[in-house]
């Protein structure tokens, strides 16, 4: 049953050092504010899971909070590589980072299987691809009807899923609209789910019957954080702040510059700062 909390409380009560955690969002609705709160609280030893690790994972890794990453594409979308992640993988800075690498199809299927309560996902994939040679979690099953050999990966069942959504109802149902990504699957696959939202509304009476809604009893904690996806975007609220993504490439290029930026913009900041950050992209639509 969803509880409305402050973001610091939602994180401290539900995410613990050593947890596996998926901050999901496919370019859209990336839970930046929640990730920054984790950094402020210094919750470490995390196994991070995500199809598309980008800036927030670069930040968590660069701050030394991550021991393992399960992923399928690690890049600054539309910009380039993730420099903090590279530094961890190539130079063990600030600490070594274990990688479990999949394809998007495998990760998407593995979340789906996790949501469906299955131990594995079965799909047609990895044909001729070297990932199957370096990742022991890529196996196969043989179809008893056709004889076809299909790829199998373990389902994803994170301890915690963290997402950002547009709206919660007062009862705690959560609405996601636009590019919905794998957020529903991540929440349903996880043991606990923390959701930040742009706003809390009376109810969803006017919402489309087939819209993506997570009923309140599938969510653990909800924190209202306007702008909480910035520099990602919230469909209907504010646009993607592409300049911030371009700027990140330079900030993350240098260890000291990175640390200074994190001090100013994360450690010394609060969830309430996000509202001001989206002011410039709010009217752009």
């Amino acid at each position, binding site marked *: 049953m969803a509880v409305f909390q402050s973001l610091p409380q939602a994180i401290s009560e539900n995410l613990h050092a050593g947890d596996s955690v998926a901050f999901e969002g496919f370019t859209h609705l990336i839970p930046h504010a929640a990730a920054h709160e984790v950094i402020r609280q210094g919750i470490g030893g995390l196994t991070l899971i995500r199809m598309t690790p980008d800036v927030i994972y670069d930040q968590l890794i660069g701050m030394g909070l991550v021991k393992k990453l399960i992923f399928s*594409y690690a890049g600054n979308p539309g910009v380039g590589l993730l420099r903090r992640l590279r530094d961890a993988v*190539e130079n063990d800075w600030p600490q070594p980072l274990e990688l479990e690498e999949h394809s998007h199809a495998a990760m998407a299927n593995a979340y*789906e299987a996790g949501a469906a309560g299955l131990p594995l996902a079965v799909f047609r994939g990895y*044909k001729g*691809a070297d990932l199957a040679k370096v990742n022991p979690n890529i196996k196969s099953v043989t179809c008893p009807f056709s004889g076809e050999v299909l790829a199998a990966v373990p389902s994803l069942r994170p301890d915690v899923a963290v997402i950002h959504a547009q709206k919660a109802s007062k009862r705690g149902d959560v609405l996601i609209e636009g590019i919905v990504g794998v957020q529903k699957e991540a929440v349903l696959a996880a043991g606990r789910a923390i959701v930040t939202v742009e706003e809390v509304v009376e109810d969803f009476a006017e919402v489309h019957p087939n819209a993506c809604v997570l009923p309140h009893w599938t969510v653990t904690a909800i924190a209202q954080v306007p702008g909480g996806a910035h520099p990602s975007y919230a469909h209907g609220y504010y646009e993607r702040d592409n300049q911030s*993504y371009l700027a990140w490439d330079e900030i993350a290029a240098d260890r000291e510059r990175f640390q200074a930026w994190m001090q100013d913009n994360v450690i010394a900041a609060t969830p309430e700062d996000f509202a001001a950050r989206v002011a410039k992209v709010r009217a*752009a639509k």
Partner: protein
Amino acid sequence: MTEQSFTPDEMMTIAAARALGNDDVCFVGIGAPSAACNVARLTHAPDITLIYESGTIGTAPDVLPLSIGDGILCDTAVTTVSVPEMFRYWLQGGRITIGFLGAAQLDRFGNINTTVIGDYAKPKTRLPGGGGAPEIASSCGKIFITMKQSRRGMVEKIDFVTSFGHGAGGKAREKLGLTTKGPTLLITDLAVWKTDPESGEFVVASLHPGVTREQVQETCGWPARFNESVEETPPPSDLELTTLHDLKARTAAAHGKN
């Protein structure tokens, strides 16, 4: 024929756009593929279906997205589905006719590396990884590859097979049980290469205007093969070039306004 000047990059994008038809359903990547697909849509293929892996089906963006999940893709889409559905029903379901891929390293058989330079466990450069590419390469009807030519990119042997093309050539795909065609076209800033259906190797079919065979070989790490009759890629038409310029100008204006 146009009087306008054009860059090799623009020629690459326009040559790629020409390879697309009205009935195609394209899985679009960011960068050159996105520009090519949208130029095709805005010129000779108005009914082409563009799909981005973020779940947006049948998009028609006014400006090029910076990421594969920009809001404009959803705003202009026929429908937006979840990512698991995208990979299960739409890609694995065999509904995509053409998948566009880029490459950090590419070999002559269309095998692609976007994972690591060097050893996987101790990489010299850790690249972003495969993302959708491994299954795009196996599930789409055909694969088109676009990249700028360089000896660093077009290599004799790639360090890691992120996406399987034609393996070591010949019937390699059939042997793996793949029923799709794999890479059939490589469009670079210098030439259009087509896959030899027998050997599975890229062969230069046309050189972009002003490009020599020597330039192609100098920027290619394997011994380039040329068709018996290599043609000249028709230069961009006024319409093609204007469409691309306008698209880029709208994109710059939109992305710069923050």
